């Protein structure tokens, strides 16, 4: 747990970078420091591992004043990853990851084993990469090594300063998702600095929104979106906050389940009747095992006698754990009004419709505003 108490930073030239900041980051939570540049988010973060000295106020790490801990000792127990990565170019990937374990005096075999584990964790093949040099890696790979290095000695706390900021958008989204999966496994207390609201909503258990060195709102992403404290937060969140909220919902929370289904041998008239009852314009077609094999659409009903004649073999689906904006994007680009939702082993789990999405968003906004 990290606790900031009246934390203030004034630079020698009189600039007030951080002013009377007080809040707590709970153990195992990913806390995003969000705000425009110059809001003090990076300064606040760097005071936690004392890369920047504190002017006044206190930072407690598990109840201990961080200025009472030896500087190097403190930093060796806090993972640190930055946008520019700063890999040691004269050392191999393995040596880079082993940096903190080596400083802590682990044996060679222990260190090597740890480096291999961490490379596995960030989904890089240890045999292929452990003896490579940073200059032989792509930008995304370097960033993964940077994260692995920060986790080197298994520190309980991780500080990350825009760790995915320098990566192209496609790789960034992928790295974010992967990192979230990693965090589910390792459950570290993480401070994650970013100026990107989308990234903040996606990554954060809680977001600390800052402005001119002050904490404006400290809340879970949903509250920030739907219950902005003041005009600044509203402006920062943006007029499309309802759309941004799509990222906070998962498909399984919104889909219709159990879904209406059709079997290959069913007669077309029966299907037509059921479609009218349910108000849905297409049904997923399943095998007896529950495996999805295709769709049957209302517009095709006149073209055959049984479902088998008019089935559209389906390849467009979404998994239950996808976030809502991914599913919506699939629906928009494929033209499907009813999207079959499948489990990881491609069994049909439900269907997603535009109506359902709209209802869910409306509810989220309303409950948020009412609270």
């Amino acid at each position, binding site marked *: 747990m990290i606790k900031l108490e009246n934390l203030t930073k004034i630079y020698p030239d009189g600039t007030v970078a951080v002013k009377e900041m007080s809040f707590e980051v709970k153990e195992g939570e990913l806390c995003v420091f969000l705000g425009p540049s110059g809001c003090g988010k990076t300064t606040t973060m760097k005071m936690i591992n004392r890369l920047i000295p504190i002017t006044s106020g206190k930072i407690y790490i598990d109840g201990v004043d961080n200025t009472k801990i030896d500087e*190097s*000792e403190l930093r*060796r127990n806090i993972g640190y990853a930055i946008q520019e990565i*700063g890999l*040691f170019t004269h*050392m191999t990937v393995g040596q880079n990851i082993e*940096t*903190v374990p080596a400083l802590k005096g682990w044996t060679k075999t222990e260190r090597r084993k740890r480096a291999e584990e961490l490379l596995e964790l960030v989904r890089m093949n240890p045999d292929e990469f452990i003896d490579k*040099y940073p200059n032989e890696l792509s930008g995304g790979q370097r960033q993964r090594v940077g994260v692995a*290095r920060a986790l080197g000695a298994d520190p309980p706390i991780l500080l990350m300063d825009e760790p995915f900021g320098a990566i192209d958008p496609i790789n960034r989204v992928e790295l974010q998702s992967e990192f979230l999966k990693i965090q589910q496994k390792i459950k570290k207390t993480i401070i994650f600095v970013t100026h990107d609201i989308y990234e903040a909503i996606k990554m954060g258990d809680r977001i600390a929104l800052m402005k001119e060195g002050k904490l404006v709102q400290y809340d879970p992403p949903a509250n920030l979106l739907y219950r902005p404290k003041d005009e600044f937060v509203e402006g920062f969140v943006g007029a499309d906050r309802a759309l941004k909220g799509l990222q906070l919902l998962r498909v399984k929370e919104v889909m219709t389940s159990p879904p209406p289904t059709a079997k290959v041998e069913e007669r077309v008239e029966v299907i037509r009747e059921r479609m009218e009852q349910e108000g849905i314009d297409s049904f997923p077609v399943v095998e007896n095992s529950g495996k999805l094999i295709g769709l049957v659409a209302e517009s095709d009903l006149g073209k055959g006698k049984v479902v088998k004649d008019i089935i559209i073999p389906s390849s467009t689906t979404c998994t239950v754990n996808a976030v809502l904006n991914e599913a919506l994007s699939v629906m928009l680009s494929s033209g499907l009004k009813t999207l079959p939702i499948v489990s990881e082993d491609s069994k049909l789990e439900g269907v997603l419709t535009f109506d359902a999405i709209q209802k869910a968003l409306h509810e989220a906004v309303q409950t948020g505003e009412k609270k």
Partner: protein
Amino acid sequence: MRRRVVFISLLTLLIGLTIWITSIGKLGIYSTFTYGEILTYTKDHLNMVFIAVCIAIAVGVPFGILITRPGFTKLSPIVIGGANVGQSVPSLAVIAIMAPLLGFGLQSAVVALFIYGLLPILRNSYAGMRSINPAIIEAARGMGMTRWQIIRKIELPLARPVIMAGIRISTVVTVGTAELAVLVGGKGLGTITLTGVFARQPLLILQGAAPTAILAISLGFILGGIESWMTPRGLKLKTGIS
């Protein structure tokens, strides 16, 4: 590969020239220097260069690093500027002024050569340390390395190729400048060259100049090899796809 071919052909040419001149024996009323004499002067020459460059390294490297440390950066224009002035004064003048200050002898020659050879080492040490990506230093600090560990494990290995290049340049330049040391009482291959100048015998001048060139080229080649050997493998690789 091409570097090696140039090096070997130049060396062969210069050695051939030296052997030819030495074998002539008589040039008018003057006799050419013997192999024994050339070898002795070469030893003296190397000795002088070695002492001067060692002092220049001992002073230049720590000072070059020191002026990149926080709190000393203000000194860097003064120190680098000072060394620049030392370099811009003609070598002949630097050497000549040592005689009235320190008297005739090896000490004057060595001090003059040291002043003249300091700049490349100082400047490259400074530049080598400064050229390191600040993000690397920040990452090292953030991971809990102490100042000394950062210098030893991160900065010095990264700056080493540039520092070594400074030492190589300084050595090669000093071998040439040491020709003039004879003017203030230092011994060396300059003795042969100067004799040739006074005797107005071009071949005699060449008998001193050719071995000096052999020394300079060979030392440059050897130190270049050491430089490449001391460059960490990770730094020799071309920057990958990004």
